[in-house]
């Protein structure tokens, strides 16, 4: 059991606009968008519970974890042992544990866009967050339970890795 845990996180956004000349397509370049004229972003950290519900709070195991120590989880694991979760046309609930969520991070490790819901289990959940291949999204919860996070593909299958920590 860990003595304590925390997660540092940061976000960066660079808005650009393409410029160029009418007849010289090779001269086009991106510059900072004139309405913003700077890079945007923020960062913070959050204390999360030292004792998470179980090993499903992350999709992967540490490279330093030993195989013998993981046998019980290895046998019961679905498809998360290598840190990669396949996302198809059926929504994937990241964890069935119902705890107050502190923080969630999801990265699309595949090539096709996936969508995220924060109301898994609702009659008709909406998927407001889209994550392109290679991109990630992260957010702190505000009375949100860990079992409410679900991921589904947009149009074609993909894969994700994730962290979902309780308070």
């Amino acid at each position, binding site marked *: 059991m*860990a*003595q*304590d*845990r*925390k*997660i*540092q*996180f*940061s*976000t*960066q*956004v*660079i*808005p*650009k*606009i*393409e*410029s160029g000349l*009418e007849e010289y397509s090779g001269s*086009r370049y991106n510059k900072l*968008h004139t309405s*913003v004229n700077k890079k*945007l*972003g*923020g*960062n*913070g950290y959050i204390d*999360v519970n030292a004792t998470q519900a179980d*090993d499903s709070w*992350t999709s*992967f195991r540490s*490279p330093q*974890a030993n195989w013998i120590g993981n046998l019980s989880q290895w046998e019961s694991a679905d498809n998360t042992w290598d840190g990669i979760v396949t996302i198809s046309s059926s929504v994937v609930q990241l964890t069935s544990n119902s705890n107050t969520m502190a*923080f969630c*991070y999801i990265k*699309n490790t595949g090539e096709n866009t996936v*969508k995220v819901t*924060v*109301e898994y289990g609702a009659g008709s959940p*909406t*998927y*407001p*967050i*889209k*994550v*392109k291949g*290679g*991109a*990630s*999204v*992260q*957010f*702190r*919860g*505000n*009375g*949100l339970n860990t079992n*409410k996070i679900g991921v589904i593909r947009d149009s074609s299958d993909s894969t994700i890795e994730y*962290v979902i*920590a309780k308070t």
Partner: protein
Amino acid sequence: MATNDVTLTYKNSCTPQELDSGGTRWFMDSDCGRKLSGNSVLSGEMGNTLNYVATADVKSSTADPEVSVDLQTGFDFFYLKCVSGDDVKLSFDGGSNYLVLLSVGEAFASFVDSSAADIKFLTATADGNSVVEYLTVT
């Protein structure tokens, strides 16, 4: 025709950390073992109308006068930073549920589904006051 297409590069990253058994040093969490990061460039997937608000005062729904910022459905990218004041909470469903929280200095950025995300935000504290900056691309 000269172009004016909007392009966004964005990155979200986090580092889960764990305190050692002696309670003296923080290490990368042994359940993850590494820093986590993802980034993307958005251009053709979204429109070219960028709206950036450098400073917006936001109050809670119980403040007088009631002030919140309601961004209707229809945009493709959303960025919000809590610049100062009280925590800000964020709704993706038009204000029925505020399930995401930002403290001062923290930011949220994501590609969003233009047909599903009806974003609204206000302070998380009753009678609170916050200053935010936000950006949308439609």
